């Protein structure tokens, strides 16, 4: 069953804020993890691991590089 995208964004925002301390107001669907949010690769892997746990989905390592923006991640998780 597909997850609600708003709920995914909310949950993912919580994970990103906990991990990085970024202001939640700065997190939006069009933001790039690397270019806008300055998230390094190990933090990205941490966020992915926590998201897998939270939403009970699997995000293959090969797919992580395709998750450029927060919206990409929300779409992947909601569609998984």
């Amino acid at each position: 069953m597909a997850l609600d995208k708003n709920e995914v964004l909310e949950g993912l925002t919580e994970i990103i804020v906990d991990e990085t301390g970024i202001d939640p107001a700065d997190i939006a669907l069009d933001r790039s993890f690397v270019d806008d949010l300055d998230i390094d690769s190990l933090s990205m892997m941490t966020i992915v691991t926590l998201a897998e746990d939270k939403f009970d989905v699997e995000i293959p390592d090969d797919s992580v590089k395709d998750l450029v923006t927060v919206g990409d991640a929300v779409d992947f998780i909601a569609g998984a």
Partner: protein
Amino acid sequence: MVADLAAAPLAVTGMGATTPLGGDVETTWRALLDGRSGVAALDNSWVEDYGIATNFAASLKVPADAVLSPQERRRADPSAQYALIAARQAWADAGSPAVDPERLAVVMATGVGGLQTMLGAWDTVRDRGARRLLPLTVPMLMPNSPAAAVAIDLGARAGAHAPVSACASGAEALVTGARLIQLGLADVVVAGGAEAAIHPLTLGAFGKMQALSTRSDSPETASRPYCATRDGFVMGEGGAAVVLESAAHAEARRARTHAALVGAGSSSDAYDVAPPDPSGQGQLRAMRAALAQAGPGVAATVAHVNAHATATPAGDAIEARAIVEALTWAFGSAERATAIPVSGTKSMTGHLLGAAGAVESIFTILALRDRLAPPTTNIQRLDPEVTCHVVRDRPEPLPATGPLAAMNNAFGFGGHNIALVFASV
């Protein structure tokens, strides 16, 4: 050519600590002088769940989450968190000096390392599979993690080292730091130790060695160095760090100096991996080396010893004899040696394992500053085998005038022995 410490003593210009008695150095020191205990029953069901015999410990007075941001805590094992807290305090206490990063080093020791991270990660793998492991697991569990965390935080680029010698680790950090400066490899070193190992595994395993007190009916009086009824140490946790500086560097920046580090001795028993050599000769060699480095003039002014004194039945008596022997050698007088006030501060802090030697070095320096030897609490009946003069219950004044020196001992499983001599400035 290594400069002699007596010829070129090192300045201690900063101190920081988070301990079971307080979240900083001064709070901890006041509690120590008041004879307060940092030991308490642990609020959990480890006794019922795991059958451990000891369910009390000396936990941090001010938890790390009250000091560090959630993001800092997520990226660091508690041992590295305690190191960060202590090192930042020490650095601020030293006046946050402008130092060439390539002349600033870190030596931050731990006895056990990232135990909580390691065991938590194993729970994750076993219960939910390796896919759920967090990517920072390895850098968080490695024993050099506290040293790396502090070096990154302070921008120290002359080297970051992590001596590991069980309960001597924190004192060995000061030895290593002193040598870095003596060898000309750094001008300033942040040196200390951190430990966060209160866990049913360690309580069970130290218990199996009969090294831990089992006085669960009275946690506050369980740590009884030198007492005839002592039955082992009490597990503690925390972090402590000092800023060591070459005298020239400290003078050039007109730094306030707490004390001088004038002797840093180390030895190994080469006897057994657990109990100390019962002859105490290994401990004696470390103390004599430190006193010899200080030189006869300074050694003659030693007025206080902060002993390792963990409250194990065998260890305290061996050390007490070795202290008397070392001071007799330094003074040429057994009578004077047996009159020097010796403090067993683990009676109040518990045993901070890899942080013990660092936090007790700070106590030794503060004793010189305030000319006051802290008490040893919980001695109901002094062990008649202990012939050194033990400070009991209340602080004891040191000579009010003139230069003073004091010694700190730290010994670890494996037969690691460290003695440090500090002098008033």
